[in-house]
């Protein structure tokens, strides 16, 4: 028995490892098989994901990307002969059609609700969606531009003596009237800022002083078609007052503005709000504002507790695709340093005809007028009201892109003194490009009396002035509305 057990044990010891090895091999084979299946599965998954990624890339980036341009970069070198480049003619198949809904990677944006926003929502800050996305590394987050405006004038000697010319104190001089640095852009998703700093020669031979021409914050995200602007600004009184000197269609601001508001026009510190209704069949903008009333010519009290109040309504009528008409009325009411009431009411009308396909208007017609109602006090302390009026009419034709010519006729009374003046000013403008302009003008002015224009024994009763203006724009310059 003992002898039989030994061979069995020996046999078992010899066979069992072999059996165990056979079992391990099977297990390993099974494991390998399983791994292979898994690998195939992964491969399929990777392929599916790759396919999906490709589809998404084709949808979200320009699918049929244009090949290398058929010319060298035009901006870097003028387009001349260039090697032919094979273009890829096929457009991308509409992959989105085959994609399951939601498969397209879409930049879902926060707050994308469709229902009308509540008043609370309207007052809440909005999230930015596209701000800054076009900016690259090293780019500024705002725009800047520089304009230069130089004026030369020739006038009779007696007018120079009386310092009664259109550019008082600068008669028979060539001078930098306005060199302006503009910085503007969006502050954040809710507001934009505009800052304009200008330098110019204000008196003959003096060093050019630097002034803050404008600095405003415009709140863009207000509800119900409203917008607010605060800061120092050229007031929207008439259509020409907000326009800076270098952008005016004339060398000088119309007499009615210079006489009723001073040589700079109406520039004030305060705030104004506008409303554009969306239910009218034509464009209307209503404006109301409150300002210090610093303008020394018309107001001058300069305190917000007795502010200068302004208002304006303008409407635009698109007569045809080629013709437009804008009419407006403005008001500004404040107090003089003597606490006397001063109110100015204005009208403005502007018509433009731009034939189909033209890059510029052929004909522009306009007129603006101001009616001034001002309290004055005589030496006895008696108060009375002085009503004064002034206006201009203007016509310009631009038959060629580079050349324009026109005439302005001014007639205005003086706001406090008796008398009036009239002037006629024909001019011709040459624009070698959009960014460079030269203007030559002649202005004949007659005043009803030399009183007030007779400094140093001179006389400014009759003036014949020649103006030469040169203007350039460097960098960004926002488009001007109609």
């Amino acid at each position, binding site marked *: 028995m003992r002898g039989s057990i030994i061979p069995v044990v020996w046999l078992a010891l010899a066979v069992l490892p072999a059996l165990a090895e056979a079992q391990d091999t099977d297990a390993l084979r099974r494991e390998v098989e399983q791994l292979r299946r898994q690998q195939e599965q992964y491969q399929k998954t990777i392929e599916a994901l790759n396919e999906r990624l490709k589809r998404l890339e084709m949808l*979200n980036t*320009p*699918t*049929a990307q*244009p090949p290398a*341009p*058929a*010319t060298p*970069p035009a*901006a*870097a070198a*003028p*387009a*001349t*002969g*260039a090697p*032919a480049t*094979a*273009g*890829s*003619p096929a*457009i*991308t*198949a*509409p992959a*989105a*059609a085959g994609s399951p809904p939601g498969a397209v990677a*879409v*930049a879902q*944006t926060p707050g*994308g609700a*469709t229902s009308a926003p509540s008043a609370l929502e309207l007052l809440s800050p*909005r999230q930015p*969606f*596209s*701000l800054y996305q*076009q900016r690259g590394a090293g780019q500024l987050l705002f725009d800047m531009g520089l304009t230069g405006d130089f004026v030369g004038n020739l006038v009779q000697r007696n007018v120079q003596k009386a310092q009664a010319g259109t550019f008082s104190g600068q008669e028979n001089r060539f001078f930098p009237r306005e060199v302006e640095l503009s910085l503007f852009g969006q502050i954040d*998703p809710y507001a934009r800022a505009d800052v304009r700093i200008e330098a110019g020669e204000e008196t003959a031979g003096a060093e050019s002083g630097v002034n803050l021409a404008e600095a405003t914050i415009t709140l*863009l995200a207000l*509800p119900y*078609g409203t*917008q607010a602007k605060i800061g120092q600004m050229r007031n929207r009184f008439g259509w020409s007052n907000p326009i800076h000197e270098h952008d005016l269609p004339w060398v000088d601001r119309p007499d009615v503005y210079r006489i009723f508001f001073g040589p700079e026009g109406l520039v004030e510190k305060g705030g104004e709000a506008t409303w*554009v209704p*969306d*239910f*009218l069949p*034509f*464009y209307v903008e209503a404006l109301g504002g409150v300002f210090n009333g610093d303008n020394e010519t018309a107001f001058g009290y300069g305190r917000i507790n007795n502010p200068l109040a302004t208002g304006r309504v303008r409407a635009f009528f698109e007569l045809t*695709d080629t013709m*437009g008409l*804008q009419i407006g009325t403005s008001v500004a009411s404040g107090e003089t340093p003597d606490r006397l009431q001063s109110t100015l009411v204005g009208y403005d009308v502007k018509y*433009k005809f731009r034939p189909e*396909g033209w*890059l*510029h208007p052929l004909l522009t017609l306009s007129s603006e007028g101001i009616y001034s109602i001002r309290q004055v006090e005589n030496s006895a302390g008696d108060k009375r009201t002085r009503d004064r009026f002034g206006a201009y009419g203007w016509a310009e034709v631009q038959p060629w892109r580079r050349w324009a010519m026109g005439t302005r006729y001014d007639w205005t009374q003086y706001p406090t003194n008796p008398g009036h003046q009239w002037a006629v000013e024909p001019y011709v403008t040459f624009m070698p*490009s*959009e960014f460079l302009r030269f203007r030559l003008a002649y202005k004949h002015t007659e005043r009803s009396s030399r009183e007030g224009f007779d400094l140093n024994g001179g006389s400014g009763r009759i003036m014949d002035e020649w103006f030469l203006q040169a203007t350039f724009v460097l960098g960004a310059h926002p*488009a001007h*509305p*109609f």
Partner: protein
Amino acid sequence: MRTIARGPLGLLVGIVLVVGGLLVPGAQAARKLRVVATIPDLKSLVEAVGGDLVEVESLTRGTQNFHEAEVRPSMMLKLRRADAVVENGLDLDAWADTAIEGSNNPEIIRGGRGRIEVSRGIEVLEVPSARVDRSMGDVHPRGNPHFSLDPGLAPAITQNFVDGLARVAPESRAAFEKNRAAFLAQLQQRMVEWTKTMEPLRGSKVVVFHPDFIYLLTRFGLVQAGTVEDRPGIPPAPQHLVTLIRQMKEEKIKVILVEPWNDIKLANRVAEEAGAKALVMATAVGAVKGADNYIAAIDYNITTLAKALQ
């Protein structure tokens, strides 16, 4: 106070409400998404994507030079009522900022959800690789902005529309995608025809008045051999024209491509001298008769080019 409320003030409020209700555009009709496009090409493409769900207006016409559009207050009124605005970007329609700001519509200001800039994701051509300034004329520092009439870029452009419109009306995304797919399928069919037409002309040289056509030319393998404008936007000097005419004669260039607002007389004179032909192209939808929509405009250009170059 109560008397005032019942009297003139109440009457005034009543009149305002009644008149306002009558005047609110489409107050009685089903509300469609109001979209304003800066140029007519984009209007046509938005109509294709938006279908019946949108009502689209363009701020400019095809016959206008988009660089120099006049900002009219009537534009501001359209934008005041808009749910979304579609702009080309790359400074082609930079004036739109002024119009949008004047509209007092916070939904479409920069950063607003209704602001859709189409140039996002477009591979822009002629991006300057060296320093540029205005001595080179009216250059575009961010590249050539006239990409809208390259049919190969329509998928990317329309995808931007789908994403932008879905921001304003997310519930309509599926419909926008469906419309887009149908439009692209239609465009694909035409693309096959256009490619076949242009294939034999691959490598042909053309002269352009202003570099508006680079995307179209590149797409179909044509070569822009020269420009009538010496520098973009600047009238050409006579010496440049003499050189150009000589080049056209030497290289047997048959056509000058012209925009509707270019100096056609000058283009004709140069073409005549060089023994070529000046062709007024559909630089935008509506630029020429028959180019009433996006596909028709491209078709016009391909047909005109093929006929002239054969």
